[in-house]
């Protein structure tokens, strides 16, 4: 059940209306657990067992960590981390290791034959395992009390709006909200619905339209002209933003309707003036996770190494973030490119400050934005390609500046329309970042127009959200 499906719309109506008809929080929690199980099982039912297994392990680990002292606390934390990372390793990374072992063996003339796992990746595995780990780590650090109520803890991990593609939540934010009975609030309903519609607009009107261009250029790399390939890379940047932030808007909107506030995942990353600023505004929940649980602890333990510590910590953090996105070399390269860019920014910050201080501020900002934007267009080629070799070929073909087919898979009129809807999206997010419409009349008008726009200008090809694969 993807967010852009009829099944979700009907399901959401049943759950939300039922949610508000219940008069106590116990009933609401139970309803949301059943709804989340149905939501998750609608993809591949059997995988609920994996989710259930990790929930039980982490719940028990949390209780034990709180109860125990000294070495035993560490033992339970490590057990929980092993359970989560182990699940990730088996279902997401096992085939990657085996494939590389096979290829490495073949390179050295050794014949290694290990079985590969023939099964689809459990949906949202990387998201819910990370969320579960943040709980046990926070309990271990004594920033969060262990949750005694199993149902509330289970709902923290499997709350359906953010179950399969985040935002990766923190226990301090969600657990108190799940325990508190919050009455119906019309303003929240309006805000949530308006935000959900904005998310649908970004997904079906922009992302799925741009997908036609991007899919064509990436599947016709050899025949396309350099200009067409550049356009494909350029539009992918907007596609992935509208796809993922559209998903996040729907998730946050659905939760807001039920009076639950999830953490923001995006904060207008397009206008970032540096790579480090970009990473504070893009997929915020994941990168704050890496910052809190990987970069920071690592940096403090290696602090005495000075600048080497920064370099090493950035390389490790972004290597892991690339690996989180996919068990492939092109995702790892994507992560490492980000690390290299951040290292460059760190070591040249003084020189750049001097250089840019000689320019007018507006020009300085514009140039910084263009450079940051350009770097991401280049780096995202590794993210979108099927293999690292394909990404290199794509970049090579752009740099060759050769002719070929300029066809982008879209009619010229539709191309212009795509640019128009992107501009509308950028202006709206910059100028009107909120979603609450105070006047009821205006709200209904907005609702009606957005439904019509999404229907008439939406591309309904049942495209899954890109981040579902992670």
């Amino acid at each position: 059940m993807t967010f852009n499906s009829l099944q979700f719309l009907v399901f959401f109506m049943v759950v939300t209306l039922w949610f508000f008809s219940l008069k106590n929080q116990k009933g609401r929690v139970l309803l949301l657990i059943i709804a989340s199980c149905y939501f998750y099982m609608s993809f591949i039912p059997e995988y609920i067992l994996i989710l259930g297994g990790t929930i039980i392990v982490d719940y028990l680990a949390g209780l034990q960590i709180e109860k125990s002292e000294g070495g035993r606390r560490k033992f339970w934390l490590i057990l929980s981390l092993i359970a989560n990372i182990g699940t990730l390793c088996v279902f997401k990374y096992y085939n990657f290791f085996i494939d590389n072992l096979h290829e490495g063996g073949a390179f050295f003339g050794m014949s290694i034959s290990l079985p590969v796992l023939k099964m689809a990746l459990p949906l949202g595995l990387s998201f819910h395992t990370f969320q579960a780990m943040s709980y046990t780590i926070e309990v271990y650090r004594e920033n969060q009390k262990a949750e005694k109520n199993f149902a509330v803890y289970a709902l923290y991990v499997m709350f359906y709006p953010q179950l399969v593609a985040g935002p990766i939540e923190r226990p301090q934010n969600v657990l108190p909200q799940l325990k508190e009975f919050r009455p119906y609030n019309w303003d929240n309903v309006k805000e949530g619905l308006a935000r959900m519609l904005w998310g649908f607009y970004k997904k079906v009107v922009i992302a799925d339209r741009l997908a036609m261009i991007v899919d064509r250029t990436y599947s016709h790399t050899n025949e396309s002209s350099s200009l067409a390939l550049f356009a494909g890379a350029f539009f992918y940047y907007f596609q992935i933003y509208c796809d993922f932030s559209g998903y996040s808007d729907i998730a946050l909107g659905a939760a807001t309707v039920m009076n639950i506030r999830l953490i923001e995942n995006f904060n207008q990353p397009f206008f970032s003036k540096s790579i480090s600023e970009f990473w504070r505004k893009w997929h915020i929940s994941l990168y704050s996770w890496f910052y809190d649980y990987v970069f920071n602890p690592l940096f403090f333990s290696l602090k005495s190494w000075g600048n080497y510590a920064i370099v090493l910590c950035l390389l490790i953090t972004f290597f892991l973030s690339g690996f989180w996105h996919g068990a492939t070399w092109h995702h790892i390269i994507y992560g490492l490119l980000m690390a290299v860019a951040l290292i460059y920014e760190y070591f040249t910050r003084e020189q750049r400050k001097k250089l840019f201080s000689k320019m007018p501020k507006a020009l300085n900002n514009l140039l910084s934005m263009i450079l940051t934007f350009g770097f991401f267009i280049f780096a995202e080629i590794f993210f979108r390609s099927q293999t690292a070799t394909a990404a290199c070929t794509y970049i090579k073909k752009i740099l060759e500046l050769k002719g070929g087919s300029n066809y982008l898979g879209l009619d010229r009129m539709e191309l212009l329309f795509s640019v128009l809807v992107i501009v509308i999206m950028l202006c709206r997010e910059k100028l009107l970042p909120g979603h609450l419409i105070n006047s009821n009349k205006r709200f209904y008008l907005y609702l009606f127009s957005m439904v019509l726009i999404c229907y008439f200008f939406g591309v309904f090809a049942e495209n899954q959200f890109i981040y579902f694969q992670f």
Partner: protein
Amino acid sequence: MFKKIARDLLILFCAVTLWASTSRTIMEYTSQKRSTDKWWGFYDYLNGNLVGLSHLDIVKKFNSHPALGVNEHHTLDSAYNTVLYLHGDSYSAYIQDVNFKCISGFQNINRYSGGNYTLDRTKRNILIIEIAEMQVRDYFGSLRMIKDVYEADKRKEITGLPHLPVSTDARYLSFFPDINTGLFFNKNINQNLECNLFNYNFMMPMFGSKAALNYYFFHRASGDVVISNDWKFLLQKESTIKYRIPITSDEMTELIENLNKIGNHYKQYGFSEIYLSIIPCTATIAQPEEYNNFIPLIQNDPRLALKIIDIYSVMKNSPEEYLCHGDTHWNINGKQKWVEMINEILAKNQTQLKNH
């Protein structure tokens, strides 16, 4: 009070819609009842399934009339005691029901899997496996055919069933218990919901206007349908992606092995001959420049032990003659040609038998 009643009614309506769209029985029942041209009837794909999917009836050029019947054919007698079995999909639909006489000279033609038959081993039994190209990789990626036929036979309480292979589904690891989830989940739920909530004759002007906007303003079809490069055919979007994906040697080996296993399985059960006929999708024939050569690769693989009814070679030489412009299936000429090819093969066999 009024708000509360309205809310409860809405919950009930949504829950019932969700449940009805999950239940196969209810969907079959409502489909029968709603097969009417009244305002509450559902939109019938009379001008071709792709025209229907894209709601492009407004553009007359793609309107198609898919093949229902083919000419009768009486050239052979039935003295040679042969029974023909057909395991097919929508391409060969209606052959059994409407004009089984088109397959000449045979006492019987049975739809294998779901047909009412018992294999008579005193006769010469021939099995034709007909399958659309787009389904081959999924269907023969495992031994699903054997399982499907076995389950259908079991439901009909047919005795003497051929043994089921040990493992017919390699999708999941064996440690997952086989949970029966059919009561709660349905893969086609979104199509069913669309049918129940929006697919009414009175809603068609709205769907048509979106289709017209896309066609005349953006020059494309909507949803799962795309227009061919030469602007003559509507194509299923999925097929235009699938027909380009290269086939690896491992995958080919697996497919051939599975096909041979299926062939051996049914030979042991009592079939004298087994034929495979892969029907190309429209994209394969209409825009061959990006084709992955899937059908020729399978048909010409020396390891394949099944006999082939090669309609691909016939169709690729004259696409316009055999394809529908707005339907995934072939037109009446395509089906007629296929039936003629079967007749030719069978006639050859008859002659060989006679000479013996």
